[in-house]
């Protein structure tokens, strides 16, 4: 793949994916769908790490380890976030961001 596809094309795909995730994060009002947007953004950044590593520094594998650690942190983040959503739903029967303003005042 690396001989036939220029790096800028791969980076275009990942930046498109990143901004689609940002769009989803900003338009959605349900917390779970906002989490989906965040996962898309994390994923796009992850691909960027791997692609920069493979195209620009092919003799090293540091991007591989960055991607591994990001995946681990994303898993931890998703677990805690979903625990919070479930607790929230139990307390106020909704996971709509517009209704989650109890702690503001």
């Amino acid at each position, binding site marked *: 793949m690396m001989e036939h596809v220029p790096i800028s094309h791969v980076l275009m795909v990942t930046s498109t994916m990143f901004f*689609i995730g940002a769009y989803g994060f*900003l338009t*959605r009002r349900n917390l779970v769908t906002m989490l989906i947007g965040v996962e898309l953004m994390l994923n796009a950044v992850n691909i960027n790490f791997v692609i920069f590593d493979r195209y620009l520094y092919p003799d090293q594998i540091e991007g591989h380890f960055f991607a591994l650690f990001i995946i681990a942190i994303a898993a931890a983040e998703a677990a805690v976030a979903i*625990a919070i959503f479930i607790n929230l739903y139990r307390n106020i029967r909704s996971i709509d961001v517009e209704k989650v303003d109890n702690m503001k005042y």
Partner: protein
Amino acid sequence: MATSAIIFYTISGVMILFSLLAVTSRRILRAAIYLLFALAGTAALYFMVDYQFLAAVQLIVYAGGIVVLIIFSVLLTTHINEKLEKPTWGKVFITATLALGGLVLTLFILTNHEFVLGTKPSAEATVSVIGERLLGYQAGGYVLPFEVISILLLAAMIGAIVIAKRNATKS
């Protein structure tokens, strides 16, 4: 056009299509399934650059773990036939403008930047190399982040259990 290029453009088309569907679908469960396809496409990209271990981790943790977690939380918190209400046109317009503006700026910089491609032969990321690097304490070893992240995962696990546990005094 080489075969790998055709495969790459197909995969990226699928990934972008399913990412768009995941953020616009009005049924949450479908959005989660579309996310699964986008993440599987990412794993395919990792396979294409010869990072088999990373692709396997991506499939196991993202596709197998996070998507299942999201689906479970959807089942616990929303009714299965419930449709999300449409975001207002003004909100869609402003957000789409912001996202498109950022995308255009990024693409402009990307296309104008000269990338200096590496010429050295590419290193093999076999499982033994990964294991030695992850547990290595010499230069280039990752044993400290490895230990820190294991503590983080433990803390996140305990935290998730404590937060999601039913409060004993209330019920």
